[in-house]
């Protein structure tokens, strides 16, 4: 299973963290520090796997962002690389050629998308279309709720004028 997902920028800034195994806050910071030290220093042509504390960390760099996932030693590294790519493709489709800023300012969206792809550290949905549809449906829900609220407050605003 996937124990955690990390998105780290090339400068070592964390962009997203998701923990599927229980790590305390202290451990989390330590893990992030340790791994960004290991991964960011690796050259471009090297393999995408790092052995770490008996686990394996699979990472892949997209533009300025490193997507890292930590898995058990006997998990399939290539499969996880595909999961990472899957995630990136869905992000790309959702944001329209995603960039780091999209993930910074819409961090909760990135979390929601990740939640549609992974649950309990396992791949939940392997179809990009389905994920896109689910996310779109949620966005519509939020939009309608917003519209309702705004029409309501419009009414209040007008009434109080």
């Amino acid at each position, binding site marked *: 299973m996937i124990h955690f997902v990390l998105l780290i920028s090339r400068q070592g800034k964390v962009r997203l963290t998701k923990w599927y195994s229980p790590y305390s806050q202290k451990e989390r910071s330590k893990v992030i520090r340790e791994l960004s030290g290991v991964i960011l220093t690796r050259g471009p042509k090297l*393999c995408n796997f790092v052995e770490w504390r008996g686990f394996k960390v699979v990472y892949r760099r997209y533009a300025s962002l490193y997507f890292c996932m930590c898995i058990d030693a006997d998990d399939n590294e290539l499969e996880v690389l595909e999961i990472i790519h899957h995630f990136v493709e869905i992000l790309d489709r959702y944001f329209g050629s995603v960039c780091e800023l999209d993930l910074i300012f819409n961090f909760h969206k990135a979390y929601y998308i990740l939640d549609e792809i992974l649950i*309990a550290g396992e791949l939940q949905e392997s179809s990009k279309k*389905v994920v896109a549809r689910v996310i779109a449906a*949620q966005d519509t829900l939020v939009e309608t*709720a917003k519209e309702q609220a705004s029409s309501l*407050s419009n009414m209040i*605003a007008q009434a109080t004028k």
Partner: protein
Amino acid sequence: MAGVVPSATAGGSSSNRSASSLVDSLFQPSLDGMIKSLRSAPGGESALIPRFLSEIRREIRSTDNDTKGAALQKLTYLSSIYSIDMAWAAFHALELLPSPNPALKRSAFLAASLCFHPSSTDLLPLATHQLRKDLQSPKFSFSVPALHLLVLSSSSDLALHLSDDLLSLLSSSHTTPHVRRCAAAASLAIIRLVPNYAHGFLPKLIEVLGPSSPLLSAAAGVFCELVSSGDPRAYLPLAPDFHRVLLECRDNWVLIKILKIFARLTPLEPRLSRKLVDPICDLMRRSSAKSLVFECIRTVFFGFPEQEAAVRLAVEKLKEFVAADDDSNLRYLGLQAMTILRKDQSWVVEENREAIVKSLADSDPNIRGEALRLIMSMVFENNIVDISAVLVHYALRSDPEFCNEILEAILFTCGRNFYELVIDFDWYVSLLGEMVRNPHFIKGDEVERQLIDIGLRVKDARLELVRVARDLLIDPALLGNNHLHRVLSAAAWISGEYIKFSKNPLEILEALLQPRISLLPSHVRAVYIQAVFKVMGFCIISYVNVHIASDSSHDVDKNAGSESLDAFEGDTSKPNSPVGLSRMKELLTSKSITYILNLIVTALAPFSECEEVEVQERACNVLGWIHMLDGVEWKTEDGEWSKDSKIMDISKIMAGVFSEELGPVSVNAQKRIPVPEGLELKENLSDLVLILGKDYIPPLPTISISLQKPFHSEDKETELTTESTSLLAEHRKRHGLYYLPTDKGENGSNEYPRANDSTLSVNLDNTEELLKLTDQSLAPRKTKPSKARPTVVKFNEDDDLTTYSRHLKEKKEGLLTGAVRDVLLFGEEKPSSSQKILSEESAEKMVLEISASSIADSLHKEDFAVGEVEHKISNSRKSKHHSHGKERHRHHRKSEDIEDKIHSTTKRGSHHHGRHKHMQKGESRNALLDVAPHTQVVQDLLL
């Protein structure tokens, strides 16, 4: 509606902006504003964060949900990006969970998933009701986040209350596959938390395990996790289902999971492999997905390495991986897969040798590491010389990090199991000497350990050892490298201890006293000074002997005279000694002795005022001896040998000091020593542990090398011992002298006894035993025929330490496995099976009561394993065990800890007997071993 703009004011200035922007300002801008100011902060974010946090703390208490939500979202951002602890906000997240606004609800769930921690959150019970409501909601946007939270918070309390809802979600046909998939994945967490619920969930999961089921991927994922974390045996009945999926499913994600399951099942059920070979080989040939092919390869290697054709095919595929020049991932995985096989099928490695050796030069350190591991797996007795030589040269050209990895691998492989691969120790010793000259070398500790270890264990290697040590000591350049100080310490010790093998003791003395030794740390300098002492002693003794021999040459046989005198000299006349009598005479004239003494005095005089007591004490010892020599008229006026003087007596005493050989000591030697007469074993010593506390570290076990009498028995021991070290060890064992464990080489000063060492006093008291030992040493022994491989002294019991640790590694999976087995083998008879577990438990409790003594023994055995390291603590415990009878009830309480560990596996029916047998075995072994130790273990505590 309370119009509060969160970022600007918390005081409640209502705004008169247009309504739509009001909602926006409540929400997005405040978060965006925070992110923007964090990004543009000139001095870094760390200064701003506390300010934002205090703002958030204020806003989050707001009664307005939007304000609260915005604050929570900001906090979520800070927490996930800057690792800020947000456990304190758990309640606020909880407050927003029931919000009808989907955006707020969703962000509340996100915040909750970040701040609910299974161990720390006591608020979870409050969430139960809301989660249930959301789980039952027909809207997937409510139920899915609830499922995520349920999985992540993973508290058994929640699991207990919500499992029924989860079950109905999983089985209901009204919910969408999307939600059901999440429910299936979530059920894994529930099953793990409450194994008994497996009765409910497993049948449902098995139901959806069909090739066309929309829930197949989730179910396969759950089973894959269950099989790999529990006892795979329980899942064997499902093999036909998995097989069907393997044949019919076309989804690579699912196939990989199924293959993983089979990799675990096949070793348990060999008949499976016949069924699996064809479909798996088919997949390997057909599939273009590397991940699937790789999983097939791994499954073949793990699951059925005996299927020739499948392995062949897998190896073919593997070659493609290893040869993938443009993809380092494939190269890495290819090499890694080979390490699975290496033990029984070395031909795979042999066949790919070229590629592996090539990978040693890869730019990726991970690939190089794998290649190195594989190469070391190819090392056998016949090629170790070549491979090591090649690698040592290769290390010279590699980068520092990998260079040391290589050297470490060589050291480990050659040193494994008492150098079992090394036949030619002369070669190995000189290899060590060569290794340390590598400019990147940092493994000084290990080389130090091995050099001394070989010196102690392998008698035949000592000549070469001394040569290598000389080369190291004599090179002034090495003194400047602080990674080599440990090695030099070993070299100095070897030169001192085995100086009789040296061609030129004067040269070594000069090396040991060169001015640059001031660069050494004090503990190494102390070893150097002690070595100087030994060399000086050797020179004087030899000088005396040479002259006795030459004086008496006209009437008696040369050797007889010299041999009777001392241990060192006895060997110089033997064929294996590099220095003949005549050469020695040439070397050691009264002039050279004077020179030596002057040199030593000049060099060591400053050390007699050294701040380091260790150095100072030893320097003073040496100077004291020289002072004593000065008082003796050992040469006549014309610089010739004066045979009537006291020099003979002095050299005799000196010979006595260093005559006993130091040898390796069994870790179990301690147990064999009987308690000396009159030693009182006080019962209440166990209280001492309480007083001292758990972290008290007993001072003794760090000393590594046995000390019989070098420092305190000059007057008794004058005879030389010529038998091999192994025989000596045998003899020591039989006579049960006092020894300590052999973790030698831990630090430089290990070779010497400490001040106030209790062993010394024990030995001083045991003069009788000492005499007995010397008697035995004199007894004639037959010499061993020379063998190809020199004897390496070792003790069979040395591996005892590792055996017990296996007992302690017990998983808590037993319960789950039991439940799974119930479901799969006996159907769904829930109540009866849980009863069964109960009754099983109670039965086992009875077994426990009955076999309390056996557990006490097994506890005892654990004590021994630990006890080698922590003498003091275990000693007091053992003494408690020793007093049977009234203290028996204490065993019970203690043994319960272990009982938990042992019996959690005993629950697995199939393991029961084996485990029990194991315990009995341990018990009977203990019965044999424990007789002696019981009586003496408290010795070092008292002294």
